């Protein structure tokens, strides 16, 4: 049981959440003007960084809200949480 900080509910057990993978991925559009490369990027290309990774998580067994998590993939430390559609807020630690 890891604890994840839900921006609406506070720290809650990991088993209540679902990870939705990398965040800040815009759905391309309008569809008639987007090339295959943009779609391939949207669907298949992921950063997979060592270090800070921005992910979207769903508090599935809680407030049912999707939100963003900035997480260090090495230490598993959660660096920031913030609502969908927002940019990552600065923290003391860095970026």
């Amino acid at each position, binding site marked *: 049981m890891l604890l994840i900080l839900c921006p609406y509910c506070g720290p809650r057990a990991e088993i209540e959440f679902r990870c939705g993978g990398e965040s800040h991925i815009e759905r391309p559009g309008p569809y008639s003007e987007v090339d295959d490369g943009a779609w391939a990027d949207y669907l298949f290309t992921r950063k997979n960084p060592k270090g800070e990774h921005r992910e979207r998580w769903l508090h599935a067994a809680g407030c049912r809200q999707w939100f963003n998590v900035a997480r260090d993939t090495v*230490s598993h430390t959660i660096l920031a949480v913030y609502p969908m559609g927002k940019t990552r807020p600065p923290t003391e630690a860095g970026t």
Partner: protein
Amino acid sequence: MSDMAQPNRLPAGGAIEGRVDRNRPLAFTFDGKSYSGYAGDTLASALIAAGVKLIGRSFKYHRPRGIFSAGPEEPNALIELRGGARREPNTRATTIELYDGLEAASQNRWPSLAFDILAINQIASPLFVGGFYYKTFMWPASFWEKVYEPLIRRAAGLGRASESPDPDHYEKAYAFCDVLVVGSGPAGLAAALAAGRSGARVILCEDDAQLGGRLLSERQTIDDAPAHLFAAAAGGELRSLPNVCVMSRTQVFGAYDSEVYGALERVADHVTAPAAGVPRQRFWHIAAKRCVNAMGATERPIVFGGNDRPGVMLASAVRTYLNRFGVLPGRKAVVFTTNDDGWRTAADLVAAGAQVEAVVDPRASVDENLTKAAAAGGVRVLLGGYIVNVTGGARGVTSAIVSVAGKRQILTADLVAVSGGWNPQVALTTHRGGKPRWSDALSTFVPGDLPDGMTVAGAANGDLGLAESLRKGSEAGAAAAAACGFSAAPAPQPRAEDEPTAVAPLWHVAESRHKAFVDLQNDVTADDITLAHAEGFRSIEHLKRYTTLGMATDQGKTSNLNGHAMMAALTGQAMSDVGTILSRPPHQPVAIGAFAGHHRDRHFRPTRHTAGHAWALENGAVMVEAGPWLRPQYFPRSGEKDWLTTVVREVRTVRSVVGVCDVSTLGRIDIQGRDAAAFLDRVYVNTFSTLPVGKARYGVMLREDGFVMDDGTTSRFAEDHYVMSTTTANAAKIMQHLEFCHQALWPELDVSMVSVTEQWSQYAVAGPKARELLMQLYGPDVDLSNDALPYMGCREIPLRGIPTRLFRISFSGELAYELAVPARYGAAVLEALMALCGALGGCPYGTEAQSVMRIEKGHVAGNELNGQTVARDLGLGRMMSTKRDYIGRVMAGRPALMAPDRPTLVGIRPVEKGRRLTAGAHILPGGAAAVAANDQGYVTSVAYSPTCEGWIGLALVVNGPARHGERVHAFDAMRNNDQDVVICSPVFVDPEGVRLRG
């Protein structure tokens, strides 16, 4: 001594008598023989009291082994605990609390412990050197699996697991606190007291049944009283504090991310069997804001010849057996120590009345006080000396051969107490990636980088002195509480002394020419280390894998450091460069059952029942799992010889009269909002904004990569109100998908979703008399004519005050409705429906008949919506809107997904009339070889169709729609059912749809 049954029990009232409860004798058996001990004993101390020295045989060489330690680090005294279904192999005798009726057996011996035929392995020992797995039994290759491995496994295995199901249960639990204190030695108690007195929520976990740690094993004093009294008083105070939870018999085995700790509470391991309803063990997730790690230290042995003989024991363990349990592990002892601490063992042995032949210390000089005290006890002091060999056998140690300045002498002894210094328990500090740091002063690794929220105090941090442990523990506890916002005035420190703890490193007595063991449990010898070095396996990770050093159930608690230091000496590296093996949780073995907890048997997965479940059972339904649900599969009647007979009867009844089927398990999602229509247009391939109120429409949803995700009927009840249905299996997934689309992709839309699957019980009423049945149910005031409720219409109609929804939709192809009623009325309405249905000559039908009828109609279901099909493959391509964007639109247009030669939905019939079809058969052109290159698709669903009076199937076949009438081969080598089939339209019944509009 006094007691014949317990010859090694120290007499009550002596200078050292131990603290077992002599008023509570306990009977137990070992290898079938009866013994007795006292409450407060461990199995190990009771065996020592009884004079049992030989406990087991070693892993590879079957050497006689005794009791080596007094704690969880025990590598030798592994036994099978209990019998029957509760038999537990590889249990450490040193950690088992004695209980009345305890049954234990030695393991890894045949035919008996005293006479073990496989001890011959000692003579064949060149075969079992390091890396023997990789080189000894390599030829011929086929012999490995068939001969060598089974043989070695029998010869070298340890205990036998029970093959019966575990009769006990295990619980999981979650706990939360400000400060978690791990360990209740002096530092842990001091920390818990400091934190507890401040008002912080404290959990104190102690692996042992009693609080106190080393305080229970030493003759030290705190505040001028015996130290164990301090432990008892501290425990009493802690238990009296409402904010403190003291958990004994609980080992913290892992430190995990975000300051969560795993702990195992042995609730009922100290009794024969758990009382009714009591779990054997409880698996704790503890979320702690701060953790004071006071796990203490483990004494390390020294590697010398014969250091595995029964009677060679850690020096601190000897003190534990004397001071805590009042048993004498030997009458004539030699103490071999590289540090000041070991000398206390000599003093305690003397105080207990044993003879100590000598203290052997390789250091050239030691503190004068030590030598003076030894001399006063009549103990010879051999400075600059080493034990090079210990002789003995199954009956135990007989002598120690000591070398001092090149001269050897033989000392008669039945006990060799060994101390190479102390290794702090760094495990918890490393579970999250922290690396321990080498300390030259202590000749060992001490905690380095600490995980967030953890501090280490006492011996676990290398602070070995009692006074220092108490002080550091108290500081750590107060600091941890303060970090959580709690503070208290500091209490006066208890008075205690810091005993001398100087140490000089010695890992291996190089003079030894006899088998000297590094890893006692895995039988890794000093020679194996040398061999690994000679063969190039020099990094500690290679050393581990090549020799199996540290890979036994004890995970190298007494062996790793010695082995690594010996390798460092061979390679000429400094220990700080060599580093240490990173340990992973669990720190001690944890039963799989504890990890599973209640998630087994009926609790493994919730089984969900519809409101009509009881009715179905009462009416003889055979139930089938449909995802998490149980649904009626068919309703057999007496005289029907098999399920097919029943299903044929059910299909015929529906097609000719009427039938009722419980379809409550289909997912239903209430979608409301001003933008509900726009939202649906973006998640479905077809358009729902044009759907009139009061109508339903079949919809198909894609994944963003263009493949079909789900299908179902969505109905419109108001401009801003739709009810979507999903397949049973995908109900939760689709709900999550819709939430994602709304929140992540189009938050600007005014739409919200609520799962209402369980609000409604829903029944399909299908067949020519479906309307008649429903008219009887609703009564004459409700108009159900084609004009009032046409095909694909939906209405909200009250039924005697109950709000119901009636949908004119059909999965079977018949005139059909689905009736939804609030779930608490579900059972009653089903009963009413069935009474009317029966009177009309209809019957209930289950998932089998439903499946047959949907195959007859060519409707796709899970077998076709298999994640590999696009809408065009299923004949649904024309539904796809060309005017707008929707999820999956662009990717569904990829050339490969548009290719005309993709496998596409068709029907098939056997050429040989009456022959059975099988799903999964591959379609090959007639006469083509059965190779992958000729594969043209596969059969997805088959059924015996009473309507067609023969087997029919659905298949995905390359270029399918253009091939109706073609004869191809259905290849099914798996079930030996090859046959020719004819491709046809997937709609076998009523292709014009006359019936469903009737």
